[in-house]
């Protein structure tokens, strides 16, 4: 479905019946990458997966930053009539989930933060500047091909590699750069203390983008958070969807309905 949200047209998937789960995709992804999770959960949950503005099949008329993305999420839930949801934030979806929770805690049943961070402290300014320079002459496809080569495990199926490249190519350069700036430079640590709901923090053992130490930070900063480390890289949803689903589904099913 298409939702008119804050000056954008947001593409959103809604499947199943039951307590709502909102899936917030990673940088360069879109709702389609949640299909294995939706397939596993839609018999007992309402699964909602929006494409962030500028990604997938959503428009990009304005700008992107985390507070704007959190407002988009609020408006999406309002438009869908969802009062409260489990929020699953993957990589760039993590800061969105944290800021959303801080602003509208009454709308959050639980949080799942996957391969993400409160503060990204890996040469963030240099990463922003190099990405800005490369986007001036590189096509999105080449940027994506090189990114994917750095991130997926050697064992990841070729089809997943091609899918991720195609997915990143759906994004506009402007949106992509807005996100790089918007998630790498700010510090979201203060939002962690606002989390009062059950929280799962999970991470791939081989994740070099948001390494296990970032997950350890989140676990330390969020009171009562449960941490799970799985045998994948940053993009476990591609590396091994079965391994990826186990802790996610176990956690969600353990929450009160």
């Amino acid at each position, binding site marked *: 479905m298409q939702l008119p949200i804050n000056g954008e047209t947001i593409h959103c998937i809604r499947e199943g019946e039951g307590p709502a789960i909102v899936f917030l995709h990673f940088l360069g992804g879109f709702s389609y990458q949640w299909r294995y999770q939706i397939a596993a959960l839609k018999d007992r949950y309402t699964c909602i997966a929006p494409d962030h503005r500028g990604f997938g099949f959503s428009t990009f008329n304005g700008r992107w930053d985390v507070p704007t993305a959190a407002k988009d999420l609020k408006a999406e839930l309002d438009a869908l009539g969802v009062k409260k949801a489990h929020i699953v934030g993957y990589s760039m979806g993590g800061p969105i989930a944290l800021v959303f929770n801080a602003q509208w805690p009454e709308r959050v049943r639980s949080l799942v933060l996957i391969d993400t961070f409160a503060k990204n402290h890996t040469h963030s300014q240099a990463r922003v500047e*190099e990405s800005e320079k490369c986007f001036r002459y590189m096509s999105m496809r*080449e940027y994506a091909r090189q*990114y994917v080569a*750095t991130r997926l495990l050697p064992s990841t199926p070729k089809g997943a590699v091609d899918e991720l490249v195609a997915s990143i190519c759906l994004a506009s350069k402007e949106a992509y750069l807005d996100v790089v700036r918007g998630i790498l430079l700010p510090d979201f640590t203060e939002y962690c203390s606002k989390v009062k709901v059950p929280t799962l923090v999970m991470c791939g053992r081989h994740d070099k983008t948001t390494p296990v130490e970032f997950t350890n930070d989140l676990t330390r900063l969020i009171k009562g958070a449960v941490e799970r480390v799985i045998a994948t890289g940053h993009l476990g949803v591609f590396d091994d969807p079965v391994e990826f689903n186990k802790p996610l589904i176990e956690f969600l099913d353990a929450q009160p309905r």
Partner: protein
Amino acid sequence: MNELQVAEDGRYISGDVPFGYTLWGDNLVEVPAELDACVTAIRLVKQGKDYAHIAAVVREEHRVTMSKAQFDGLMLSVYRRYGPI
């Protein structure tokens, strides 16, 4: 190594032309075989292979020569963009 300088509109200003591109006027134009070699090189670095091995593989698979300086330039840019591999 001379740092690449590129104008806001993508036009080449100065510095080393990145591996995978060639200069045409003041534009950087894609060289597909070299860009394929870039992806292969990154994958092999991720597998722990060294430059000598990687240079041999890209020569064999893509019929291109990647100098040590070009390899270092590529990996520096990749590291800056995406962080550790």
